[in-house]
């Protein structure tokens, strides 16, 4: 139940990809037949991504993943519009691909405002408005958060950005296949997505760039992607991403219905455990996301014990991160330090059933009890 980290590649997707790994191996920039087959395959995939976002095909650029899309969007806008201004607005609960990029830009002379969020992890459009300066060139607010699943009022923020003629980027990596998207209606100028989050391949993502946007190239080199993103196209992965987004988008409604039921059952069951709290917003959240804190225990040990029972999850505990810092997202939501430690994220996928949920509901209370018995923090 860790589908927000990565998903397996869907069988239908692998099947579409395979021929492009061996037979149809041409370089799409080549003149000849084999290259043409690759080029058509890429164009088809581009159309599918465009359809999923309500954009035009020539506004879609393939990248190596969500991280590159975020880096490109933010650095590309920053460097291209430096003469206009040096101020960027983002939120304190963005993915590190956004936050670390902004931090690096601060080292290059840019200034960044990291907006706070309320206890549900929601960015207030009012705060966005207030943060705008004369030299603001970019607002980057994610569509849905990867830890607590909170869905931001992106349409409103987009409107504010538009009115102030500031570029608006949204990291939609977690949203694809869960939240219906229309870049025009939502006033989005740039949008990042990543294939492996919706049963597509790893190492492939896309950036939507609205026509007319002033943005620097990020990967310089050959003339691929209409001269804006160099590098020999990863044809099989692009084909796979196209197929995956097509399937994921077509199934949003149906899948959300199932997921919401499973999520409801899961949350209800887990909240029966005493001293358990739901993180994030009760309703404005991804249908597949559950994030719960159990007081007095630490997340890594919880994960390990779940793992032993074949249940995969994730946590915001400091102990489970390379930096030994607790989740910046939960911290930003005002969750106290000790309590962040005991957070558990379960993210449901298409493959999960009611039985899976019940297995979790059986395992977690036992494990929580075991760890609480071990903890010096547990009240007698």
């Amino acid at each position: 139940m860790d589908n927000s980290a990565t998903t397996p590649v869907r069988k239908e997707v692998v099947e579409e990809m395979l021929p492009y790994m061996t037979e149809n191996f041409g370089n799409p920039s080549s003149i000849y037949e084999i290259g043409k087959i690759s080029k058509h395959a890429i164009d088809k995939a581009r159309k599918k991504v465009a359809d999923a976002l309500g954009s035009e095909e020539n506004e879609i650029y393939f990248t190596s993943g969500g991280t590159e899309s975020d880096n490109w969007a933010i650095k590309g806008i920053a460097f291209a519009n430096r003469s206009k201004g040096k101020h960027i607005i983002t939120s304190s609960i963005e993915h590190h691909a956004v936050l670390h990029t902004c931090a690096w830009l601060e080292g290059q002379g840019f200034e960044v405002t990291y907006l706070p969020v309320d206890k549900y992890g929601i960015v207030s459009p009012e705060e966005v408005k207030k943060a705008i300066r004369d030299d603001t060139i970019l607002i980057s607010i994610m569509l849905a958060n990867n830890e607590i699943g909170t869905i931001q009022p992106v349409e409103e923020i987009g409107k504010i950005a538009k009115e102030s003629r500031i570029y608006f980027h949204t990291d939609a990596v977690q949203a694809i296949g869960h939240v219906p998207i229309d870049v025009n209606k939502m006033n989005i100028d740039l949008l990042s997505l990543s294939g492996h989050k919706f049963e597509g391949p790893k190492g492939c993502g896309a950036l939507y760039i609205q026509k007319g946007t002033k943005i620097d190239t990020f990967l310089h080199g050959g003339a691929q992607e209409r001269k804006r993103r160099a590098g020999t196209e990863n044809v099989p992965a692009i084909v796979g991403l196209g197929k995956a987004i097509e399937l994921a988008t077509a199934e949003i409604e149906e899948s959300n219905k199932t997921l919401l039921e499973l999520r409801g059952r899961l949350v209800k069951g887990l909240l029966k455990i005493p001293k358990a709290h739901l993180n994030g917003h009760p309703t404005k959240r991804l249908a597949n996301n559950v994030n719960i804190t159990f007081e007095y225990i630490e997340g890594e040990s919880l994960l390990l014990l779940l793992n032993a029972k074949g249940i995969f999850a994730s946590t915001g505990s400091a102990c489970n991160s390379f930096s030994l810092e607790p989740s910046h997202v939960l911290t930003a939501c005002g969750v106290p330090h000790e309590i962040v430690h005991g957070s558990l994220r379960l993210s449901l996928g298409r493959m999960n059933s009611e039985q899976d949920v019940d297995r979790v509901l059986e395992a977690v209370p036992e494990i929580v009890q075991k760890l609480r018995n071990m903890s010096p923090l547990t009240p007698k």
Partner: protein
Amino acid sequence: MDYSLKVMDHFSNPRNMGSIENSDGVGEVGNAKCGDIMKIYLKVENNRIADVKFQTFGCGAAIASSSMATEMIKGKTLEEAWKLSNKAVAEALDGLPPIKMHCSMLAEEAIHEAINDYLKKRGLETWDE
């Protein structure tokens, strides 16, 4: 995390877990790096550690270190127990991932605290690192 089988064993089936009523010394330390907490309870007889229990709020490595460290000092003299280093605990666990070495420090420090607590209660001078 790449935990050794020994870590996983001590983590899943921790030895000496719990508390001691009327203990002779208690040490509680927090980990500066990650904010985790360990508590060690000692029962001392004839300068030897007759019994020891632990409570830990921490990661797998911290729990396994608590379990292993308490096993290693049980029956030892206070001087011997004082000398137990976090490195020795980690080695006894067949190693810890580099980023997890600090977790074993919790055990070393909690034992020191508990011994000093015992000494203090006895009106003796506490020992230095």
